[in-house]
């Protein structure tokens, strides 16, 4: 069913389709339409919407809802995303499935509330203290706000980890036809089979089944380093084993997670790397470059973290140009793949114009 809606609304519809039944949040431009839509839609499907007093409380009630057995999410922008970081770490440590949408605007601080930027790329990866791995998806248009939000819920349920949808103002506010699919593949978290449940004992896939409060299991959940029963243990060995597993469950299985679009790369000698709404500018620039005889192509990661093995696609290119609306937060990794890698960065306010990207490509 084709609906003419903006990216934020598409994100909310994706969440509902994926089975999300709880939203806790605090409105902030340019993510507010997600909260608005969820406030309308959740009661219609038997879910609950709760506006909290701030973002600290928002993310905490999302974690609580997840432990009560609901698929839960929140949505925010840079300033709120900063406030949520501590509890994103708590979600990683307690292996709590949840989805956090960050519709990026220009910062630092309150910055440009209504205008686009991509400054939260590193914060989405390593924003909380301690060591952990998040999964970060980067939608590039309204349709992907729908599709990747569904995927975010599925990944968070499969890996028992917070998943971040790293959107941006253009992606959230662009209004276009979005296909709200009739059939959607949905994944649900594993539940313990027997009454003897060790709530943090992982199966071979590195993921422990998740008991839900109120279903009869005894368990304990804490942000402290914990044993398989969930109780705090002050021990280097337990810390080593636990955090190794938290990292490995994402890194060792990243083949299931990583996804990218490859556009006109087969015969290219110049690879442009861009993601999110900047990818639209870059794709148009690549098409214009082709018309001028420049053999360019586009690599667009749809998953930013964990980092894909994109080196194979990039290492033999003559030139690599990373286009992003920050000072090189993705470039810092991408430049390791090819010596001749340049950055076209920026600090936001508006997307790079295809013309401007083309100019850089022409003199590269």
């Amino acid at each position: 069913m084709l609906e003419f809606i903006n990216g934020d609304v598409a994100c909310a519809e994706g969440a509902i389709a994926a089975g999300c039944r709880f939203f806790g949040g605090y409105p902030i431009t340019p993510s507010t339409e997600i909260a608005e839509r969820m406030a309308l839609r959740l009661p219609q499907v038997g879910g609950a919407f709760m506006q909290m007093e701030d973002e600290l409380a928002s993310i905490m009630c999302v974690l609580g809802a997840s432990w009560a057995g609901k698929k839960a999410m929140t949505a925010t922008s840079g300033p709120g995303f900063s406030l949520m970081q501590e509890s994103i770490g708590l979600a990683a440590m307690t292996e709590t499935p949840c989805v956090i949408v960050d519709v990026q605007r220009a910062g630092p601080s309150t910055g440009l509330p209504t205008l686009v930027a991509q400054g939260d790329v590193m914060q989405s990866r390593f924003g909380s203290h301690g060591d952990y791995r998040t999964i970060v998806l980067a939608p590039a248009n309204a349709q992907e706000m729908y599709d990747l939000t569904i995927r975010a819920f599925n990944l968070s349920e499969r890996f028992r980890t917070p998943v971040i949808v790293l959107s941006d103002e253009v992606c959230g506010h662009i209004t276009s036809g979005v296909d709200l699919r009739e059939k959607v593949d949905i994944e649900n978290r594993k539940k313990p089979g027997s009454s003897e449940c060790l709530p943090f004992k992982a199966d071979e896939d590195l993921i422990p089944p998740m008991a839900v409060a109120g279903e009869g299991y005894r368990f304990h959940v804490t942000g402290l380093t914990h044993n398989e029963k969930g109780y705090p243990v002050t021990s280097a060995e337990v810390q080593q084993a636990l955090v190794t597993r938290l990292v490995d469950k994402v890194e060792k299985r990243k083949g299931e997670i990583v996804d990218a679009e490859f556009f006109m790369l087969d015969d290219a000698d110049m690879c442009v790397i861009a993601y999110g709404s900047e990818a639209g500018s870059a794709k148009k620039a690549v098409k214009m470059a082709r018309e001028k005889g420049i053999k360019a192509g586009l690599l667009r990661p749809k998953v930013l973290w964990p980092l894909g093995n994109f080196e194979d696609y990039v290492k033999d290119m003559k030139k690599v140009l990373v286009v992003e609306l920050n000072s090189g937060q993705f470039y810092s990794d991408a430049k390791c793949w090819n010596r001749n890698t340049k950055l076209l960065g920026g600090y936001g306010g508006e997307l790079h114009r295809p013309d401007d990207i083309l100019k850089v490509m022409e003199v590269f």
Partner: protein
Amino acid sequence: MVSIRFVGFGGQGVVLASTILAEAASMEGKHAAQSQSYSAQVRGDITRGDTIISSEPIIYPVVEKPDIIVAMDEKGLKKYWSDDAVVVYDSSLITLTGKKEDEKGIAANAMAMKELSSALYANMVLLGYLVKETGIVSAESVKKVLQKHPRAEENMKAFELGFYQ
């Protein structure tokens, strides 16, 4: 591909008008995308709404060179002025030099005030006039979209004021 840039100040319904136009085009089976830029204030400051209508999928949603500028305010028009664009403007709020051949003015604000007692509907008057002058979409498609919006009756009346002017 047709690119239409709506400009005005926050609160005039610039973004809404461009969204309704885009949705009407989408309803007719065309590819349409609407994007926008506005300030953090609820009212005032320059606001822009971009509508792109195309037979091909739209990969870059921002208008680069507008074919048509729909202007509701002089400040916005100055900022986004393009020598190559047809300018459709509210002549009750904007005075153009008359140097341009393809200027099309309608006293949208004054008409909305007179007929509907509110400047809120000036955007729909302008939209009606734009649709009549350019035929980008059919009036029927716009009316179908308007039916889904609050105050459909008043908006429809405003649209017709512009369309049948």
